[in-house]
């Protein structure tokens, strides 16, 4: 399973694979209830999908055109706020020329025909499907044109399409797609399709309103936690507060006396209390007496983890990147800068706490869940129930936030285990405390940097040693996530000597992908350190970066645009300061200029000016939403959010001590999109990494003290 952010070169390779694959179009025919059904294979690029790719290609996206003119797009990417239902529909609708108002979307249960890995992660949804969805739309459109031409007895070249109808250009006769769908289903599919010239796009590139807004403002949208099944019980689980601990024994006599409590069952993760509503289940859990075997992590603390990282950083680790001879260049440098940067564990804490509804029966299992990876949910349920995967139906609900957390299947596992043990349908709900204290966390990280500049202020050496907790595999001793954004530093081509090494270190704290993954801390490290090197070189931070980006036009482009729009170098209101940061992640490029003041030990972020180059933009308003979203997600951890460990457990429990950014702290976010015809890049995770270093670099200007630790502490502002 891979949910990692992907570097540009890998994304580009993938796009080429899509372009060269002439067999993406696979199946046409009649739908079950008539009409035209067109199916396509959309290749995925995760590890599992790579295995699946060796198998015959499968269908995983459908367009269905009904006799009533409805167009249903089957979309295999969960909607978690990032706008996939809208943007993927826009791509299909553009080339299909259908009536936007008659579109419906549905998310299927994973099935072999949908290929290897069904999921939404890595900011991949648009960039890995764009070309194939265009081809899908065009294939269906050509078949509808052919059907109309046959009906009229004319040359298809005499027909054009517009808003869900084929038009005979000689007579202005008009046939709706719905009226042609059955006939079109009998027409052989074209093997070669050519796509619209982007300058004729009517839907792609437009800020079309999201398709999910009406449901979400009326209370009608059904999230995972809103699933209701006849006869279900409501469950909560008591889990060992220490990571890796387990139940030694428990006494449920007081629990069973709580009104509404129906059953208590032990499951692998703890003890589940089932009741006639969620509240009674929670009350029953309070009355439960559990003796825990706290296991090997019972004495773990954040301070000990930090000490482990510090000790490791004293000796060489596995090499992640080596260019030239960095040690010699450092020794020869006119000026040398050494600095240690640190970032803590973080929780995802989406607004919707983890939950899952499951109904295990002897002959099958239904799961209603807000998941980023349906395939993982299905495989988890199949493994617990010993049922074949095709007997596990995954009903994908709206996700009340994902951010990487919902790529996990731990909550699915619990719900299926409980339903299996209790013999009834079960809705499992995690409290906020459960969610925050049993998350899979963004790893803490410790990075020791060295840099050297020559007498002319040129950067001649860059070294970094990272100690961090791995969670998704180690290759040649290196945890790729731990060094993402450092080993492949965007300035790399401008630095002659580089050495990056890594100590993957087990801490006992469960970790996973967190919006922008390694970049979420590493860009804070690198962009702050680059600012330090600019200082050593005696150069302006923007000017210094420009000199390193001569061979990187898209990075340079966003830097220049953000600096220009923010008025970099021009006078600011008294007490206000600018800081800059930029990055290239998920196949996109963005630069941010933060305008910040510090008064009485309190940071105020007034404005973030962001320039983003994410290739072809499908929906500018959604891109703008995601830019803002990523910034808010990164700003909370810059200013105060951190997860700390004491006695093997998480100290923070709710939004009082893990308080996300609130509306009164929201800076003005100004978004400038670089016009581009390049293949689409990602957007969901693009802007999270830059906000902390942009703010920290501005705070340095305000206070003269480097911020090398997140969150920014009171002592850093003194």
């Amino acid at each position: 399973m891979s949910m990692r952010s992907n570097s540009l070169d890998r994304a580009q390779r993938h796009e080429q694979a899509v372009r060269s694959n002439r067999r993406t179009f696979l199946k046409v025919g009649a739908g079950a209830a008539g009409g035209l059904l067109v199916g396509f294979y959309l290749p995925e690029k995760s590890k599992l999908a790579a295995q699946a790719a060796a198998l015959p290609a499968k269908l995983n996206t459908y367009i269905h055109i009904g006799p009533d003119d409805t167009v249903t797009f089957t979309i295999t990417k969960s909607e978690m706020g990032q706008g996939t239902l809208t943007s993927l529909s826009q791509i299909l609708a553009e080339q299909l020329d259908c009536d936007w108002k008659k579109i419906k979307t549905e998310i299927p249960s994973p099935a072999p025909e949908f290929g290897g890995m069904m999921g939404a992660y890595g900011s991949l949804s648009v960039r890995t499907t764009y070309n194939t969805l265009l081809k899908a739309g065009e294939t269906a459109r050509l078949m509808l044109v052919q059907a109309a031409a046959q009906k009229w007895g004319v040359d298809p070249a005499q027909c054009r399409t517009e808003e869900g109808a084929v038009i005979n250009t000689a007579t202005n006769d008009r046939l709706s797609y719905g009226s042609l769908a059955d006939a079109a289903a009998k027409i052989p599919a074209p093997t070669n399709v050519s796509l619209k010239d982007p300058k004729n796009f009517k839907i792609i590139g437009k800020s079309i309103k999201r398709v999910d807004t009406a449901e979400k403002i009326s209370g009608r949208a059904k999230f995972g936690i809103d699933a209701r099944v006849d006869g279900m019980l409501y469950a909560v689980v008591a889990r060992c507060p220490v990571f890796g601990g387990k139940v030694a024994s428990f006494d449920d006599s007081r629990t069973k006396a709580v009104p509404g409590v129906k059953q208590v069952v032990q499951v692998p993760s703890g003890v589940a209390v089932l009741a006639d509503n969620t509240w009674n289940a929670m009350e029953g859990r309070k009355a439960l007496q559990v003796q825990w075997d706290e296991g090997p992590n019972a004495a773990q603390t954040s301070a000990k983890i930090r000490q482990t990282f510090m000790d490791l950083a004293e000796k060489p680790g596995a090499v992640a990147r080596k260019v030239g001879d960095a040690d010699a260049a450092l020794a020869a440098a006119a000026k040398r800068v050494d600095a240690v940067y640190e970032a803590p564990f973080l929780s995802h804490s989406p607004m919707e706490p983890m939950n899952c509804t499951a109904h295990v029966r002897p002959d099958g299992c239904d799961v209603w869940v807000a998941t980023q990876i349906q395939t993982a949910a299905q495989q988890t349920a199949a493994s617990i129930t010993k049922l074949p995967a095709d007997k596990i139906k995954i009903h994908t609900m709206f996700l009340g936030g994902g951010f990487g957390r919902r790529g996990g299947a731990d909550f699915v596992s619990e719900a299926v285990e409980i339903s299996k043990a209790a013999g009834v349908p079960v809705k499992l709900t995690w409290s906020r405390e459960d969610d925050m204290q049993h998350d899979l966390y963004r790893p803490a990280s410790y990075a020791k940097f060295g840099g050297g500049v020559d007498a002319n202020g040129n950067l001649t050496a860059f070294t970094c040693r990272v100690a961090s907790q791995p969670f998704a595999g180690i290759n040649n001793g290196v945890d790729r996530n731990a060094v993402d954004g450092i080993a492949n530093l965007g300035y790399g081509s401008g630095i002659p000597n580089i050495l990056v090494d890594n100590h993957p270190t087990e801490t006992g704290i469960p970790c996973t992908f967190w919006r922008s993954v390694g970049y979420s801390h590493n860009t804070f490290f690198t962009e702050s350190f680059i600012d330090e090197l600019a200082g050593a070189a005696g150069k302006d931070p923007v000017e210094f970066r420009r000199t390193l980006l001569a061979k990187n036009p898209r990075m340079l482009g966003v830097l220049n645009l953000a600096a220009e729009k923010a008025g970099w170098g021009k006078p600011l209101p008294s007490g206000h300061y600018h800081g800059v940061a930029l990055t290239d992640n998920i196949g996109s490029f963005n630069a941010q200029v933060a305008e910040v003041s510090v008064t009485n030990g309190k940071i105020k972020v007034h404005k973030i000016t962001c320039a983003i180059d994410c290739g072809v933009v499908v929906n500018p308003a959604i891109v703008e939403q995601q830019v803002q979203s990523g910034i808010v997600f990164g700003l909370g951890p810059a200013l105060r959010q951190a997860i700390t460990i004491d006695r093997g457990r998480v100290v923070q429990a709710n939004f009082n001590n893990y308080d996300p950014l609130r509306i009164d702290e929201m800076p003005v976010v100004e978004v400038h999109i670089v016009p581009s015809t390049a293949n689409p890049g990602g957007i969901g995770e693009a802007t999270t990494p830059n906000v902390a270093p942009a703010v920290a670099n501005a705070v340095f200007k305000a206070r003269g003290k480097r911020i090398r630790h997140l969150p920014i502490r009171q002592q850093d502002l003194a």
Partner: protein
Amino acid sequence: MAAVKFTLNGKPQTVDVVPQMPLLWVLRDTLGMTGTKFGCGMQLCGACTVHIDGQPRRSCGTQISSVAGKSVTTIEGLSADGLSHPVQKAWLEADVPQCGYCQSGQIMTAAALIDKPGSRPPTDADIDESMRGNLCRCGTYQSIRRAVHLAAQYKAGKGGAA
């Protein structure tokens, strides 16, 4: 267990549950009205906001027994069609929601601000003060500010009709 009578979205409602049970879980589990969301259970995030006698209240911290005889409005009852309160119209125009989970609570808080008798159009500072109890992890705050201003215009009869 005790029967509690109150008015829910304009209609009489009786529930028979433990008196300490929060209104949130009565709405969601007992009555199946899932538009009101569970976020924190400690009145810290605002996802569960409803109106009680016209005032915005956190249903996660409101015992059902305290609601007896009162009038409760949830997102499902804010407008007849679920879309036509000035705040909902503004939310639609500004396309505010991303994941959408917090939006019922955001809308109920904003509606109480806009519908406050004799209120003037809110400033950014008014909006920040009223809305700071409502968390959004997707970061829709800038859109929310814009939409509350729009809603105030709609309320005053300027634009946004139907």
